[in-house]
């Protein structure tokens, strides 16, 4: 009997095992707190500064209200949204079929695509613009329209969209899916729309949101070409009224977070929902 008791005592209880399994090492917590501080302190500072400098009797959100009342804010924000959406549309129309075909029929070109796609990373935007300007100036009808920014941003967004699509296509057995659809009688457009695109949904959404983030935040080219986009407006306001500039920065944070939340919700929506949306089933 004594022996049995000794064995039972030697064996750790399930409670102790659970506690040991769930124990988080202290240094994990320390690094997590440091990382959180690095991200959260600047945001906290921005919020605090944007609520400061308010006169007596004024709302604590005075600078935000001032910004929202400014017609230039609305027009610049809308212009940036418009340019972002155009950039996304042009990028997707160009890149989705290209990357699809390269993966399916010309896999030997993938290293070339990889190389091209990193060019906008290694060449600074200002250099690209200086190179593009003489060419764009010749197309006078386009040069004066904000759509010119969309075309330039397509180049800037290329690496992000390409990487997202490339990862998405690598994650599926593209050739087998295409051949399965073909053996069932489907032509390529149907295969692309009803089989491939629904399975690239997360990649397309991710790439599109990165494209939006780039187009919404780009300052150099818009400023050089004298378009009053949201970043240009933010900079201009920031140089004259620091409080309003910081409030605008926080508004742009909110916009990015909203976009990230949309990405999360769309990505979580399940394949069935996307399939219904994209394939327009029945």
């Amino acid at each position, binding site marked *: 009997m004594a022996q049995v008791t000794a064995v039972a005592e030697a064996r750790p209880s399930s409670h102790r095992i659970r506690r040991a399994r769930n124990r988080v090492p202290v240094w994990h917590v320390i690094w997590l707190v440091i990382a959180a501080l690095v991200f959260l302190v600047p945001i906290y500072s921005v919020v605090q500064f944007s609520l400061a400098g308010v006169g007596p009797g004024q709302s604590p959100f005075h600078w935000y209200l001032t910004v929202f009342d400014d017609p230039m804010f609305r027009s610049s924000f809308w212009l940036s949204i418009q340019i972002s959406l155009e950039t996304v549309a042009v990028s997707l129309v160009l890149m989705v079929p290209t990357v699809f075909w390269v993966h399916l029929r010309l896999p030997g070109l993938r290293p070339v695509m990889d190389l091209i796609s990193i060019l906008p990373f290694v060449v600074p935007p200002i250099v690209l613009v200086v190179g593009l300007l003489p060419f764009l100036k010749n197309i006078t009808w386009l040069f004066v329209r904000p759509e010119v920014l969309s075309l330039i941003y397509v180049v800037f967004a290329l690496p992000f969209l390409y990487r997202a699509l490339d990862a998405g296509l690598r994650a*599926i*057995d593209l050739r*087998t*899916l295409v*051949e*399965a*659809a*073909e*053996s*069932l*009688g*489907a*032509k390529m457009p*149907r295969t692309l729309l*009803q*089989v491939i695109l*629904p*399975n690239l949904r997360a990649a397309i959404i991710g790439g599109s949101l990165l494209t939006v983030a780039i187009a919404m935040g780009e300052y150099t080219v818009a400023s050089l070409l004298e378009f009053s986009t949201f970043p240009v407006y933010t900079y201009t306001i920031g140089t004259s009224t620091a409080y309003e500039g910081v409030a605008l920065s926080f508004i742009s944070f909110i916009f990015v977070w909203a976009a990230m939340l949309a990405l999360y919700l769309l990505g979580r929506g399940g*394949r*069935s929902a*996307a*399939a219904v949306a994209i*394939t327009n*089933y*029945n």
Partner: protein
Amino acid sequence: MATVELRGLCRTFGSVVALDHLDLEVHSGEFVSLLGPSGCGKTTALRIIAGFEWPDSGEVLVEGQDVLGQAANKRNMGMVFQAYSLFPNLTAQQNVEFGLRVRKESREKRARRARELLELVGLASAMDRYPRQLSGGQQQRVALARSLAIEPRVLLLDEPLSALDAKVRVQLRAEVRRIQLELGITTLYVTHDQEEALSISDRVAVMSQGRIEQLGTPAQIYRSPRTAFVANFVGTMNKLEGTVVSLEDRVVRCGPLLLQVPDPTFNHPAGEKVELFLRPEDISIGLLSNGDKPAPGLFEGRVTSLTFLGPVTRVGLETEIGPLMADVSSAVALGLTADTVVAVKLDSTSLRSIAR
């Protein structure tokens, strides 16, 4: 139901010859397996029939008509792939309906047909599941149902069971055969698994280096291999090297033994070196008491290894005509250990000869 005929198919990939003047005729409603090791060209042949590859030369005739000019989506051939190929964004039912949607069939007909076929493959209860919610075996069943939904002229199966575990494979191959017989559909089945090919096919084409080494019924392939490759690739064979003593009497000398080859096609002149093949199950052994000599017609062997295979045990033997393997009942093998001396008897009616 359709006939399929391959005439002189050639295909090279760079310097690699995948198909070398391949000829094959598959009769209407027949189940033919292309069996061979990796790289023998079996999948290339199937993909050419499906329209996913094109030959350098040759013809593919379906019901007497050359289909090489047709795109894959016009050939009306059902295909089940080695990799899981269900569309991940569609349910099992929607996958099965896909080909019917392409053909613009009514919703009612599509739903009815999908239900029939999913019942046929035993998955009627999983109609609303997505591929990620199905096991590998279930996915391949749905893929089979999907390929059958379009009422294909020919069913092409490219190693559809190779990713599944052994037990599911055995179950599913029986189902594939049952369904094929039920529908009477002409079927070409690619596999490297000899047991699979021999168990479900009407005929088996054993391929090597882009050519068919032998085409025949499973029994012909197993019992009467015509080439050394087939003999070695299909099942386990004992190989005895010998010299022809008499063409008329079909007698071959292997070491001290004179063996008569029963093969009526034996046509090797006296003095020619030949290889004789014999299955392990065609060799029997008996225990020898100390000092006893084997009876006439038998010879002595020493046990070198024992491999338990369930109902039989494979016994490795060292004999005067070289190393041999014999399959004996596991109950009999209980009395054997390494170095046991036994009397060995060859069933010479099963001997096959191939010129070296």
